[in-house]
């Protein structure tokens, strides 16, 4: 039997250079907004799960600073070093297992580097990514998250499976769409995307995810506790998780959608989605380069989905808050469900600590309430 679990509140804050708040103050602001949205008080929360990394937060055991701000004070608390969607699944386990009735999940990506311009954030994220790769085989030869995306895109273009002009056009459309929502980049044309500085050939800077700083929080609840909340946002009808192969395994390059397909199979089976392209109203993808989009869509069995239903928020090329991305995709999906007055939506989230290599993919199926 699928456990009866809900998102009952959420908050998102994209963080810019104008903030005067310390990291924990930002987390408090966002988590208290999510609790207000949920109509839930801190003392009802039994479990606080955070997604963050010391190397972004510039502090050893940085969740020591942020846990009390994330409603973790005197609570069961845990920090996951992966995309915030993994933290969300851990919280769901606590609810499904009956340990708690309410849980909060916080995703934190506010690099402590003095300035939060896109290039500065990406530079740190890539720096940390290089430290995440194996110290003896991969790091010395320059492997980073972006390099895996460049390798993949180059291979697809060389094989005739992708065209640079199409990637530029798709990227421009997404960035422009996102500019009207939570996007951090202004609207652009395909020509501007193509003419942007080359980042990891063949991908230009604008084809890479729009690196940003942000904090997100969602409040989750089980069963009646959730349904008694003033504004339950969505029922979490299905979820699945899988981790992609490591560097030496050719699978990450040959079939980067494979882990997505494994996660999707579990999530759809749980949610009873048998004709997803007809049943799904919107999908938010973590397709880290435009050359990946089609492969991820196929892996989600959503080839037939109408274009306007895909990445309505603009996706990761409109706003990509690193390790907190999974929560932003959930928050955007909650908006999609509200716009659609309900229905079924899919969230695809994957961490990019090592880009396509050994990335953990989570697929969620949300139903409007």
């Amino acid at each position, binding site marked *: 039997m699928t*456990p009866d679990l809900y998102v009952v509140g959420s908050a998102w804050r994209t963080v810019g250079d104008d903030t005067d708040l310390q990291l*924990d103050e930002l987390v408090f602001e966002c988590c208290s907004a999510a609790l207000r949205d949920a109509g839930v008080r801190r003392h009802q929360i039994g479990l*606080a799960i955070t997604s963050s*990394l*010391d*190397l972004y937060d*510039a*502090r*050893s*055991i940085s*969740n*020591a*600073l942020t*846990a*009390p701000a994330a409603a*973790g*004070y*005197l*609570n*069961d*608390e*845990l*920090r*996951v*070093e*992966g995309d915030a969607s*993994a933290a969300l*699944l*851990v919280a*769901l*386990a*606590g*609810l*499904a*297992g*009956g*340990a708690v009735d309410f849980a909060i999940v916080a995703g934190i990506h506010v690099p402590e580097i003095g300035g939060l311009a896109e290039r500065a954030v990406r530079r740190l994220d890539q720096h*940390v990514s290089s*430290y*995440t*790769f*194996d*110290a*003896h085989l991969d*790091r010395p030869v320059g492997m980073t998250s972006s390099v895996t995306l460049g390798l993949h895109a180059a291979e697809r273009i060389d094989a005739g499976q992708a065209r640079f002009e199409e990637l530029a056009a798709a990227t421009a459309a997404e960035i422009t769409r996102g500019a009207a929502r939570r996007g951090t980049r202004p609207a652009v044309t395909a020509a501007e995307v193509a003419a942007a500085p080359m980042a990891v050939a063949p991908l230009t800077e604008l084809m890479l995810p729009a690196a940003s700083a942000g904090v997100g929080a969602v409040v989750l609840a089980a069963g009646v506790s959730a349904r008694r909340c003033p504004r339950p946002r969505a029922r979490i009808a299905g979820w699945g*998780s*899988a*981790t*992609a*192969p*490591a560097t*030496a*395994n050719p*699978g990450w390059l040959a079939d980067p959608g*494979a882990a997505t397909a*494994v996660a999707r199979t579990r999530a759809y089976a749980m949610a009873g989605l048998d004709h997803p392209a007809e049943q799904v109203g919107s999908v938010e993808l973590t397709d880290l380069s435009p050359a990946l989009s089609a492969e991820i869509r196929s892996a989600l069995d959503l080839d037939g989905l109408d274009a306007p239903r895909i990445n309505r928020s603009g996706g990761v090329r409109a706003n990509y808050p690193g390790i907190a991305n999974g929560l932003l995709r959930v928050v955007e999906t909650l908006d999609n469900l509200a716009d659609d007055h309900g229905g079924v939506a899919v969230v695809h989230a994957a961490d990019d*600590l*090592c880009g396509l290599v*050994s990335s*953990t993919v989570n697929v969620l199926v949300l139903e409007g309430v």
Partner: protein
Amino acid sequence: MRDHAVIAGVGFTEATSPRRQELSKNELCRLAVDRALEHAGCDRRDIDVVIIGDIAGFEASSVAARTIAPALGLPPYTTVLPICTGGTTGGHLPNQAAALIRAGFAQRVLCVAPNTFDGPVDLQAVINTNSPMVMEQPLGMGAVHMGAFFPAAYQERYGVTDADFELLATKNRENADHNPFAHVTSALSAEHAARMVSTPLRLGMVCPVSSGAIALVVGAESVVGGQAGHPVARITAAQSISDGYLGGKRRDFSTFEVVEVMARRAYREAQVVDPRSEFDVVELFNPYAPMEFMLMEAFGLCPYGGAPELLRKGVTRYGGDLPVNLSGGIQCTNPGVAGQISPVAHIATQLMGQATARQVEGARRGLAHSTGGTFFQFHTATVLERVDL
């Protein structure tokens, strides 16, 4: 399918100093995993999720789970869950495995606790960065100094003597003599042990830096219970607690205040009414020996200030009716995340009747604890019970 979570397999590697360790981190973790799988009678192809702990900044690679997981020979696409909560990382691994199994998200979870401390050239310098930056780190507060605050206050409040602490440290080293996976034993020279580090802590009361890995197979009772060929250890309570950030939030350093709160929750969950009589064996996280007294009290195993008397009466020694840290504890062996999971691992083997150290005959229920973070901000508790299948 939702079910009780049981520890079915435990894999230790022999502890040594990082300098003498000949295996790489990946090799050591693989060895611990192989032993845990064999002990559980479990095929690695059946693992659903692997949870791997690390402590950022202590290792050559950030999020060490990324580089360790591929070395474990697990099936393609096995979900990898990296956890880091500082000094409680290891304690969280079995607790989180239990959460996934109780929720029905997984049936067989592998917990991998690596040898965290093998990397840094100057480990102490790295550990010292754990004290709160900006506010408390500039005040000369490293790990051992944070650790000294508590026994200093405890001594003052309850009139506990340095000799009581030394007796405790000696008891643990004698226990470690019987644990083949221990690092420091009673071979430690008395002169070395007596050197003052930070009052009232002397070197013999402070843990060594060890190298070693531990892995656990945690599974759904109805799935893995019958395969192990030995009794398994059901996780009947899995709790953690998080205090405020700065050391100054502790208020009263003469006790681990928040452990009392966590213990109440753990006992409620496991239906423990009288902890003093209901536990057969206890392992408490004691990188600084005096913590054992303070934790016994916060866990309600004796009145506040009463722990030294239990030691003097022999109650907490081997053969007593509440043996504490028969493994020798963290005071004798501390390989980082592997050290943090070790209380659970040792209790599990006691309940299986296959103790790593001296066996408590007929042990049915045990308590395991870990702690860490700045000024012991975080704690975990795990209650385990023997299940015969």
